[in-house]
């Protein structure tokens, strides 16, 4: 597609089991800014079955226009009908930009759409901007496990496509006063190519903490003092929305199960924030967590090794400091 006659910023509004994925709202937040910078419209594309009420949500979160395509074929995510629908829609309306979430769904079918449209795509962006002169999308993404960042443009082909990481962009406040247009279209199953079909869906809610994936981890060490006191670690994790980690000493003492252990003989983690509470910082523990973005250490021993890798450190008794922290995070103030 040519650069001249394409316009508007589209976001693919991901839903699973009829619920909007939070990345859809985050994309609306990011897309709003891009659309405003370009002086164009922000358009959400929703694929699903019997999901009309969700269109209102999309408008309340910033969309100027919603394409809602309804088909039984869209009830469960399948690459082919999803890609076909979005491809056809893009061919008909020529957007300048299409964004999707870098989720299991988005990373699977958005590239297929890009290939159908023979255009470029930038996966897993963590920052998006419009070049003020050239008016092209600047997608910035990590590579090599986050050791290098690259900014990528798609100058001559349209649409410019990107997937965006979950929990990176900010959604706008919900505002029911926002106005927008909904364009609904019914599609028959027979009009869609559809070979790989979902025959069953199984939910697996992890009983154990998913440490490796967690953005925030609150870990307790021997300095917590006792099995009873370890509840403080759980409480802070709950207040902040993080997973519970433990040092080897704590696991060996039987305060928490092995699945929580961080370190050389446990899990290697790389969250955005890592709280080390009463953790001395043995080499084996550091090996499992030192690449965390932000490390916060609370320990009564000012010489504890953990302070050497900490971004922020408090020297003090965890049993005095942590209850205060819990209060702040519970009250968000």
């Amino acid at each position: 597609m040519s650069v001249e006659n394409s316009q508007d910023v589209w976001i693919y509004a991901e839903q699973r089991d009829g619920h909007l994925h939070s990345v859809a709202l985050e994309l609306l937040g990011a897309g709003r800014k891009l659309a405003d910078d370009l002086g164009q419209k922000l358009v959400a594309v929703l694929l699903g079955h019997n999901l009309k009420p969700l269109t209102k949500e999309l408008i309340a979160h910033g969309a100027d226009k919603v394409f809602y395509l309804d088909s039984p074929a869209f009830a469960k995510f399948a690459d082919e009908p999803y890609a076909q629908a979005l491809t056809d829609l893009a061919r008909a309306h020529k957007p300048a930009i299409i964004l999707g979430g870098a989720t299991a769904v988005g990373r699977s079918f958005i590239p297929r759409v890009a290939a159908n449209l023979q255009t470029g795509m930038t996966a897993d962006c963590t920052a998006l901007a419009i070049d003020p002169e050239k008016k092209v999308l600047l997608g910035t993404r990590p590579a090599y496990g986050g050791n290098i960042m690259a900014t990528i443009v798609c100058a001559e082909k349209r649409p410019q496509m990107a997937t965006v990481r979950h929990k990176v962009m900010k959604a706008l406040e919900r505002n029911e006063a926002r106005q927008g247009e909904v364009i609904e279209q019914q599609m028959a199953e027979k009009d869609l190519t559809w070979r790989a079909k979902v025959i069953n869906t199984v939910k697996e809610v992890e009983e154990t903490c998913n440490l490796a994936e967690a953005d925030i981890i609150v870990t307790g060490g021997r300095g917590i003092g006792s099995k009873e006191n370890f509840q403080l670690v759980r409480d802070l994790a709950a207040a902040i929305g993080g997973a519970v980690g433990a040092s080897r000493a704590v696991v060996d003492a039987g305060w928490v199960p092995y699945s929580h252990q961080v370190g050389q003989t446990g899990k290697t983690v790389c969250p955005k924030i890592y709280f080390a509470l009463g953790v001395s910082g043995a080499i084996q523990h550091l090996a499992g967590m030192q690449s965390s973005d932000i490390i916060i250490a609370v320990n009564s021993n000012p010489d504890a090794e953990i302070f050497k890798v900490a971004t922020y450190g408090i020297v003090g008794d965890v049993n005095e400091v942590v209850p205060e922290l819990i209060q702040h995070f519970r009250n968000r103030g």
Partner: protein
Amino acid sequence: MNYFLTEEQKMIVDTARELAQEKIKPVREKYDEEGHFPWDIVKEMAAADLMGLYIPEQYKGMGRGIFELCLAVEELSKVCGGISLAMAATALGTFPILLFGNEEQKAKYLPDIATGKKLAAFGLTEANAGSDAGNMTTTAVKDGDHYVINGTKQWITNGGEAETYTVIAMTNKAKGPRGATAFIVEKGTPGFTFGKKENKMGIRASATRELVFTNCRVPAKNVLAKEGMGFIVAVNTLNTSRPGVASQALGIAAGALEEAVQYARQRVQFGQPIASIQAVQHMLANMATEVEAARALLYATARSIDAGEKSFAKISAMSKLFASEVAMRVTTDAVQVMGGYGYMKEYPVEKMMRDAKITQIYEGTSQIQRNEIALQLIKEAAKKQ
């Protein structure tokens, strides 16, 4: 030191190293703690074509020799001297067939061992016949075209897990050393059962059990060599297998040395890595020198056997004696270099120290090796006169 390995020998070392690092290292602590037999690792060894290194190609092996077996056992033992034993003890149980088996026996038993489908074990030791093998009481009495075996073999590595056993029993006590016979006994033969699994200090991933024979009827065609040649089979088997124990000991020592050096570079005391403290440096220097000397002796021995040397009893005993003594000293010093951490199960050296001890004991204690070496020395001197 550069031992000028061939391309193929380097591949064997690489294959064993990858297996040790990727498959054994993550589970060695668990196996040591729980004492289960590492069947999943044995399958990996088989899939990597390592189980039949020393078995001729016509029996589905890789057609290499004792040296290649030693290279593989050394690499595996650097990571775990207990798990590597599944391979080394199978070699011990296979040598009687390889050295003395007839064509029919080889064709029947070697391919499954070479491809790792079955493990082997060697049954010589008894409760009252350890170093004094001549004191054995297990008997085999001929009855038509069978032998009826009665008695109990003790501390048999791979016991219960192996399918193929080579067992020495007395067929004629009156003939003394010439009254013993070697048999191949298959697991599942009626009258052949296993005693309890021993709870050991080290090499805990290896299974050690009693072999119990109660009126166990074994076909006469399972006799290895001839009736009465049992001790000749046993002595030649042990002479051939001792480099395997030496390579296990060497691997354990080399593994401990590596851990100690790495640790010494990282551990900071008095404001400096302990590797820069001369007292520690000298310990590491001694350890490294001993490991290299053990390796040089073993490699020379193994290459000499493969090249066709006939009288290798002395050098075989020397390499086993020296490597096992080195393993004990080096692992003990590795624990010392690492101090309190070395004593903890969090680090592998305390396990290596426990694993090292057995190499001074089994397949002939260090004392028996010295006897053997002295005996050969005296024989050689007598020949010269």
